């Protein structure tokens, strides 16, 4: 017996030169392109979402750059809550720069056509404001009229709401103003501003005549300056900067406004980007899971190829080429779709954007999308396809030959990259490693929890499903548990979108529930502000006339902090190492005095001390919990207040926990009685007004008799908060929709993937005597279960997540929006049924014989 060994001379071609591999990839793909397409279709929506949001960001930045001056309306704006002193204005006069001014305050306005009244933002204007951009009015000359007489113009929303037309008049303070028109566009005023505080505009020269400017009224004054160029801007800044501390005003330049806006948009934008990113990650999961099934299905083919001499790599490459190019195709489609969605985006985001967005496709974002798509098509296909390399050729002889599970280096590297992918991509999108990490961990936790809930749900249903249920129901259920059905993956991918929407609804509901005024408790729902001491008796007797309960009558004294723990606040504000925010140090505090706790308060630490007459010691005051943390003070610390120019030495005697929304008004600082009685003050009363005619008659009479008193209807605030939420939720829903669609595409892919298995099952059922109707029913019920379970998974987890958010982040009670959850649940279930059934039509209608042939 001769025994010899010859070395084989096998040449290994690199992938790009191995023509056979490319040929096989093409041949194998050509006949089920639609099916292969579903492998990567779930990428499309993800990429589309990322590209759309990216494009939005680019055009937003561009628009901000181009319209920065319009946002401010001037080159420099000086803000103050007192009219600017001559020292400042005279300095500006020497520079001979054009100026304009406005004064803003909250005031009641009565619409004379209907005699209804409402608290609005009253803006009194002088000069050519805005210097940049345009105030668009209807009719166009309306502002001209305002400048030259007792005319008013008002925001369109307000005019619509109170059905005001051009011949009507408004009662503002003591005076009547004729309506000159409506404002349709104001530079810098976005949709949100006018929702929160709709404006009425009058001339600044008419403001005094209204009698609204009284002691205690909060008015913010702005002076708008137009400069010739950057140099002049710098000059102006030089002049006004040194006196900011002394006269307590601040100024803003175009550059600063741009930075500020850019910053706030960035964080909003990052939040939206991450939402879009969720859709992409879902798409990746979809791709990986369907490629996994695909690879498993190709096992026998691979074995045959290996049998006739292909290497493991060649077999792998055939399928890799397919999915990679399909992935690229999916990315291109996604980027195209994302660019197209740009058209809708300004509609969805209009409330967040203060400038007109030009429709422009950002090629950077499109490229980013393509790059992301290419990365994803490699990362998320290599792992499931890696198994192809190790299919034992023996499979041709014995189908169920055991696969030796081999750890390949490639697979390990790719798995590490997959773990890093969301971290890196999210970091790249948000420019912050921390955010990237938090987002990735959060997403991983959400997916993990969803998977856990899905798993538990599946087990529970299996365990407790009624055994005596009809055949169709039992059979449809057992279909969910067929091997390789990916039921759990589907529940997670479909459930995630539902989870986002459900969480948003529940949190929204809980927050609104906080502001809502519950049933028959006697809580105040109306607050009367700015009552001068001389008006106090009159207002109270008016309330009595209308049989309104006088829940609170509270004095308010305005003051500032002069020293904190022995340090001057000016010094602290210019000290960069100081960690107390400037706004807290420099702001105006509205304090009250009393000797007992209000029903919304409880003592956390220390106690309320009474003032001992004649004592030379400090006055003991209490502070609210939140502000105590912000100001970094504790019981025993000293504070010097500046009360209308007079210093008052105090010490913190206690810390109150305040339930702010409960029975307002509530206060940060409460002084003891006996100290502030002589200080200039105004009064506030709180009451509960019923619905209907008597309420509006009261309001009318109040505005007539006491025009400077502001009435705040807390129910109005509620509806304002509600509409604010409505606007945010449009965007969140819009982006969550991408996730849901991705989930449904993954579903479609999975349905098509399991087609052959399901055809076989159905043929078996038919052979056993099932009719088409029954098979259709089984299919529909199966997907109804799937949809229901997915929705339940998302909703269950959303309740948990909402509870966590409410408890620890918003610190409010959870209140579940059952109706909204029901709607989300039914919508998800119905869509799942529809998609499942649509993709199963062929399965349902295939006649048995054809299947036997295919088996051949």
């Amino acid at each position, binding site marked *: *017996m*001769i*025994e*010899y*060994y*010859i070395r*084989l001379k*096998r040449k290994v*071609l690199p992938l790009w030169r191995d*023509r*056979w591999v490319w*040929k*096989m990839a093409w*041949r*194998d793909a*050509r*006949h*089920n392109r639609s099916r292969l397409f579903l492998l990567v279709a779930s990428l499309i929506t993800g990429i589309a979402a990322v590209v759309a949001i990216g494009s939005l960001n680019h055009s937003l930045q561009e628009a901000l750059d181009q319209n920065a001056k319009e946002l401010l309306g001037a080159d420099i704006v000086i803000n103050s809550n007192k009219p600017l002193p001559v020292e400042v204005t005279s300095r500006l006069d020497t520079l001979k720069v054009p100026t304009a001014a406005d004064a803003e305050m909250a005031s009641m306005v009565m619409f004379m056509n209907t005699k209804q009244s409402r608290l609005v933002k009253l803006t009194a204007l002088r000069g050519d404001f805005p210097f940049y951009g345009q105030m668009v009015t209807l009719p166009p000359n309306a502002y001209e009229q305002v400048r030259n007489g007792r005319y008013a113009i008002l925001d369109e929303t307000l005019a619509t709401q109170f059905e005001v037309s051009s011949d009507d008049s408004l009662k503002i303070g003591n005076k009547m103003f004729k309506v000159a028109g409506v404002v349709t566009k104001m530079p810098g005023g976005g949709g949100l501003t006018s929702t929160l505080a709709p404006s009425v505009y009058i001339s600044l020269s008419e403001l005094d005549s209204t009698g609204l400017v009284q002691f205690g009224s909060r008015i913010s004054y702005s002076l708008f300056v137009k400069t010739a160029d950057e140099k002049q801007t710098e000059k102006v800044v030089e002049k006004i900067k040194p006196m900011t501390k002394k006269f307590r005003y601040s100024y803003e330049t175009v550059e600063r406004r741009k930075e500020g806006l850019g910053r706030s948009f960035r964080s909003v934008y990052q939040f939206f980007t991450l939402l879009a990113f969720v859709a992409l990650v879902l798409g990746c999961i979809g791709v990986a899971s369907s490629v996994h099934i695909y690879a498993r299905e190709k096992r*026998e*083919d691979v*074995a*045959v*190829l*290996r*049998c*006739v*001499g*292909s*290497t*493991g*790599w*060649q077999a792998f490459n055939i399928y890799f080429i397919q999915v990679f190019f399909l992935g690229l195709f999916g990315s291109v489609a996604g980027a195209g779709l994302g660019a197209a969605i740009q058209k809708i985006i300004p509609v969805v985001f209009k409330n967040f954007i203060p400038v007109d967005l030009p429709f422009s496709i950002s090629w950077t974002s499109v490229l980013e999308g393509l790059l992301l798509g290419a990365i994803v098509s490699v990362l998320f296909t290599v792992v499931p396809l890696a198994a192809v390399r190790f299919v*034992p*050729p*023996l499979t*041709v*002889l*014995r189908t169920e030959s055991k696969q030796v599970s081999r750890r390949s280096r490639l697979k390990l590297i790719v798995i590490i990259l997959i773990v890093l992918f969301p971290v890196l991509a999210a970091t790249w999108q948000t420019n912050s490693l921390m955010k990237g990490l938090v987002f990735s961990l959060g997403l991983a936790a959400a997916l993990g929890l969803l998977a856990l809930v899905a798993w538990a749900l599946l087990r529970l249903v299996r365990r407790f499903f009624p055994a005596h249920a009809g055949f169709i129901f039992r059979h449809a259920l057992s279909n969910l548990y067929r091997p390789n059905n990916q039921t759990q993956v589907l529940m997670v991918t479909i459930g995630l979108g539902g989870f986002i929407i459900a969480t948003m609804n529940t949190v929204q509901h809980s927050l609104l529930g906080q502001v809502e005024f519950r049933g028959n408790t006697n809580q105040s729902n109306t607050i009367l502000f700015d009552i001068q001491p001389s008006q106090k008796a009159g207002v109270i007797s008016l309330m009595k006339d209308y049989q309104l309960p006088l829940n609170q009558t509270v004095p308010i004294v305005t003051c500032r902090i002069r020293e904190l723990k022995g340090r001057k606040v000016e010094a602290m504000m210019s000290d960069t190492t100081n960690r107390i925010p400037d706004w807290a140090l420099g702001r105006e505090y509205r304090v009250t005095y009393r000797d007992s706790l209000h029903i919304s308060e409880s003592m956390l630490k220390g106690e309320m001390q009474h003032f001992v007459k004649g004592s030379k010691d400090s006055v003991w005051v209490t502070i609210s919990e939140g502000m105590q943390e912000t100001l970094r003070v504790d019981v025993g610390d000293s504070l010097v207040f500046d009360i209308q120019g007079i210093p008052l030495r105090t010490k913190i005697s206690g810390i109150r926990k305040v339930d702010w929304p409960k029975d307002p008004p509530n206060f940060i600082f409460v002084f003891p009685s006996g100290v502030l009685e002589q200080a200039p003050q105004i009064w506030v009363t709180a009451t509960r007004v019923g619905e209907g005619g008597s309420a509006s008659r009261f309001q009318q009479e109040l505005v007539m008799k006491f025009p400077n008193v502001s009435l705040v209807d807390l129910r109005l605030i509620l509806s304002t908060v509600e509409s604010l939420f409505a606007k945010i939720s449009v965007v969140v829903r819009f982006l969550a929709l991408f996730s849901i669609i991705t989930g449904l595409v993954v579903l479609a892919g999975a349905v098509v993937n399991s087609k052959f298995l399901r055809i076989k099952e159905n043929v078996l059922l038919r052979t056993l005597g099932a009719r088409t109707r029954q098979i259709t029913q089984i299919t529909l019920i199966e997907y109804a279960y799937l949809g229901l379970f997915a929705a339940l998974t998302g909703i269950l987890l959303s309740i948990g997540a909402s509870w966590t958010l409410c408890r620890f982040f918003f610190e409010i009670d959870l209140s579940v929006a059952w109706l909204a959850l029901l709607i989300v649940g039914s919508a998800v279930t119905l869509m799942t049924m529809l998609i499942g059934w649509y993709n199963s039509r062929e399965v349902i209608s295939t006649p048995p014989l054809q299947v036997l*042939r*295919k088996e*051949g």
Partner: protein
Amino acid sequence: MAETVLNVENLTKEYASGDRTLTVLDHVTFEIQAGSRQAIIGPSGSGKTTLLGLCAGLDVPSSGTVTLMGFKLNAMNEDDRAYLRNQYTGFVFQNFQLLPTLTAIENVMVPLELRGDKNVQTRARELLGRVGLGDRLHHFPSQLSGGEQQRVAIARAFITAPRILFADEPTGNLDEENAGQVVELLLDLNQQEKTTLVLVTHNLELAKRTDRILRMKGGRVVEEMLMPVS
């Protein structure tokens, strides 16, 4: 003296089932000469398929050696064995094993294309003609009957002019008429192409038309019969 294309020595295959080992092949030894025809017969479970798989290098033995065309299979890795199969062997299976996404002619061309050969169409067309499928070149497997599919598989097996052809119950899934056609084809091509034939079969009639019959039982070759030249 004829060249030895396949040498099997002390071939043993064991499977661990639970805590005891199952010996499926037990020290099998034989040699096959170029151009000859062999039949392996035996009761179900006697180890025929296992033996064939080992001979073709589709699996690795527990002990013993297989030498194919002078190459010792044990010493090679999976990809090298695949290359060897492509160079020297052909396969025909009981369940045909055509690639469902490829047409008949594409299925036939695969082994040659794998080698990087060009202009393989002509040879594939010619072979399909010889197996009687000249007008079904562009049909997919699902559009062909079982017998037709097996004839495509035979064309694929012969396109590389293999030195040795392994067939595991090639007629097992066919009716008598189709089975007859397939057998004639296999034997004819064996004659014309001087291919060594290793046939696993339950069909005694077919076995009797070979040069030598190896009868297996319980993992051993229990009988070796030389047939008179027909």
